[in-house]
């Protein structure tokens, strides 16, 4: 009966991450793998949701107020004018907004450029819509964009460029982990190419409010000639620590937004009603809320950088946004990232994610294959969207490990 699977579904295989997470569960380890908070959602938000349920906001709804707030936020943050009546689609999380956007613009055979390392869900979605993912590798250790490599990846069939601006997450499968924030120059390179070749950009901005070192989040849509060809996707999940509520959105010029809405209605029909209502409260949060969010995550970032440096990693690239540290294995560790993570679970009782799953090989990385893709097995991703207690406990366990093993985990040679 296996032939009954669609050809798209057949290409997908279970990830090695699954096995590791089972191992982690069995060992009762401290989880720095899963990219969602282990601290509670803000109480003003929980109360808003509870109140919505009690007030009978439980039938199919579209809460237009969300669009009104988003329009204000886009104006304030990026100086962009969007019409809340026509330029938005409220979806079940950024995942669905992205899926609907892809189905809205991708036809059989359309090429879609993605930056590597990246979130695996993008590829799956693109393939389901009949598109062809084309990966452009970002250059380690700072994950910079090589303009030539990027331009060379574009063909007459390129329909869209996916800008996973900041890192993204999916707890049981690999994704862009670097915490890189694209620079203005890099954005201009991408924008220039999109304009010249009449391509569409889809951006994933779920970490838009989690940036560090006073870095400003620049939306690709705010560059000249880009608003008309950019679909912005985002959600409540990371900003408000409610990854399980499934409220997200797509913001785009009216004809794109209308197409996305029409597709969304056929995929899920609407986002959960009580959480749409609570989203109004979330999006009305004062500037202090966002300041505190940034500050707290920044201090967690600094804490984990120190923690991981303490066990021999060289952190050449401190994350500028999101809540992941993508760290290169200690030089003297000769085995793979998967081996390292296994050992870390067994010996230290701490779980992280091997970086290999975020990298993809593709035709346009011939240069890379000459150099060797060895670096793709040299990274480990640590999540720091965890309570201070969890991070401290992890630090404790890792400190014990260093003492016991002398910074050389496993102690084995290849």
């Amino acid at each position: 009966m296996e032939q009954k699977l669609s050809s798209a579904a057949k290409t997908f295989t279970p990830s090695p991450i699954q096995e590791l997470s089972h191992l982690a569960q069995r060992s009762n380890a401290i989880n720095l793998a899963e990219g969602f908070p282990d601290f509670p959602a803000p109480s003003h938000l929980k109360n808003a949701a509870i109140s919505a349920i009690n007030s009978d906001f439980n039938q199919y709804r579209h809460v237009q107020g969300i669009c009104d707030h988003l329009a204000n936020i886009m104006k304030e943050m990026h100086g962009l004018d969007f019409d809340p009546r026509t330029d938005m689609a409220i979806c079940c999380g950024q995942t669905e907004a992205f899926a609907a956007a892809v189905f809205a613009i991708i036809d059989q055979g359309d090429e879609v450029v993605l930056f590597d390392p990246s979130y695996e869900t993008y590829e799956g979605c693109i393939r389901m819509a009949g598109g062809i993912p084309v990966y452009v590798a970002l250059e380690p250790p700072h994950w910079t964009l090589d303009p030539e490599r990027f331009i060379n990846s574009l063909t007459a069939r390129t329909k869209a460029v996916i800008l996973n601006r900041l890192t993204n997450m999916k707890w049981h499968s690999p994704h862009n982990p670097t915490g890189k924030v694209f620079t203005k120059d890099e954005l201009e390179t991408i924008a220039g190419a999109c304009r010249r070749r009449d391509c569409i950009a889809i951006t994933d901005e779920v970490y838009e409010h989690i940036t560090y070192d006073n870095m400003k989040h620049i939306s690709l849509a705010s560059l000249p000639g880009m608003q008309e060809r950019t679909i912005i996707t985002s959600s409540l999940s990371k900003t408000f620590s409610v990854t399980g509520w499934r409220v997200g959105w797509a913001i785009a010029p009216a004809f794109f937004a209308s197409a996305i809405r029409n597709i969304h209605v056929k995929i899920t029909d609407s986002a959960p009603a009580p959480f749409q209502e609570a989203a109004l409260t979330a999006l009305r949060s004062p500037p202090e809320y966002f300041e505190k969010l940034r500050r707290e995550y920044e201090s967690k970032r600094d804490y984990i950088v120190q923690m991981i440096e303490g066990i021999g990693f060289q952190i050449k690239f401190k994350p500028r946004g999101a809540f992941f540290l993508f760290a290169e294995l200690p030089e003297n560790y000769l085995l793979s990232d998967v081996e390292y993570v296994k050992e870390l679970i067994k010996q230290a009782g701490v779980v992280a994610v091997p970086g290999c799953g975020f990298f993809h090989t593709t035709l346009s990385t011939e240069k890379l294959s000459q150099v060797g893709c060895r670096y793709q097995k040299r990274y480990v991703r640590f999540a720091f969207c965890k309570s201070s207690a969890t991070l401290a406990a992890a630090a404790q366990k890792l400190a014990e490990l260093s003492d016991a093993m002398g910074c050389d985990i496993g102690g084995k040679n290849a």
Partner: protein
Amino acid sequence: MASSPAVKDAVSNQNNSNQSTQQPLQHVAKRLEKFKTTIFTQMSSLAIKHGAINLGQGFPNFDGPEFVKEAAIQAIKDGKSQYARGYGVPDFSSAIAERFKKDTGLVVDPEKEITVTSGCTEAIAATMLGLINPGDEVILFAPFYDSYEATLSMAGAKIKCITLRPPDFSVPIDELKSAITQDTRAVLINTPHNPTGKMFTREELSTIASLCIENDVLVFTDEVYDKLAFEMDHISMASLPGMYERTVTLNSLGKTFSLTGWKIGWAIAPPHLTWGVRQAHSFLTFATSTPMQWAAAVALRAPESYYDELKRDYMAKKEILVEGLKAVGFKVFPSSGTYFVVVDHTPFSLENDVAFCEYLIKEVGVVAIPTSVFYLNPEDGKNLVRFTFCKDEGTLRAAVDRMKEKLKRK
């Protein structure tokens, strides 16, 4: 490339404002021809404008039960607001399996054979995208719920349609036998059926089953109204001999528990089919609302008395509406299940179902849904409109009174 109506309006504005901008129309995917603004939205806007009583859209104007709402609130308080396991909270998957066993006698493994989705709508989309290849032939029964055609076109399927006709909307067996062939990939069944209220009989299901076994065809069954079965018992195709291994059974929380906005649905299928559904689901929404799943587990463990009372309440509502519609002069077709009833509006001498519904809103102040939108060929539905009785009794009586007063046979 033909433009779809939804896109046309936006594009004409674009043309007027800026001739030099490149045409954006070619960017929008071809599949969008099937994705138009729905009739439901259009009718609802018109309804609000005229202060009409809405018996069109199929969701209750009363709320879900307290014990389920309380469970959701408790889940939020207990900190269950982060990602659930992609294919479902384990306790909820178990509850689905328990309920399925009570309903069908079938024992399924919640870990391998159940996928939780954002409503049955998403379960349908995930099933189509996970199990249907471009060019595959899929058989639908018209009239059908509008997302079937749309998601089949997303999957690139070839649709073959068998029309169910009044008065009893029974399955035309000869047409069915010539329709299902070696080339058929899947058959989609909705029972109890929206919009007609028809319930597929054991004979009909058995005939379909033997044709599917003979030709190695899958069956997808949408059973969201299974607890609103009034005139006969609901039968799940999966429970027929030889059928579980080739059936995907789809259902949801919303209709049974009057919580249509929570978006909790699921698909039950053998592991090799569940694999495909889960893959598509993981790219469509990735995970389903966590607190609502916890509450849904509580809901599905409700005692039989909940379901008995649900049926009793709906049967009382149905009687008010059906008696009223008959008294007004509609030809009312028997509806065995769901909370819908379909009627022939031609005694009122309007041109077609859309014209009748517009007239009904503007002149009488009541909303119904024109059924032509549920057919591949709209002509097939032009004599029929659909009313719903998922409203409180006061609302139903008020609607009937308005129709008695203002709707006259011509």
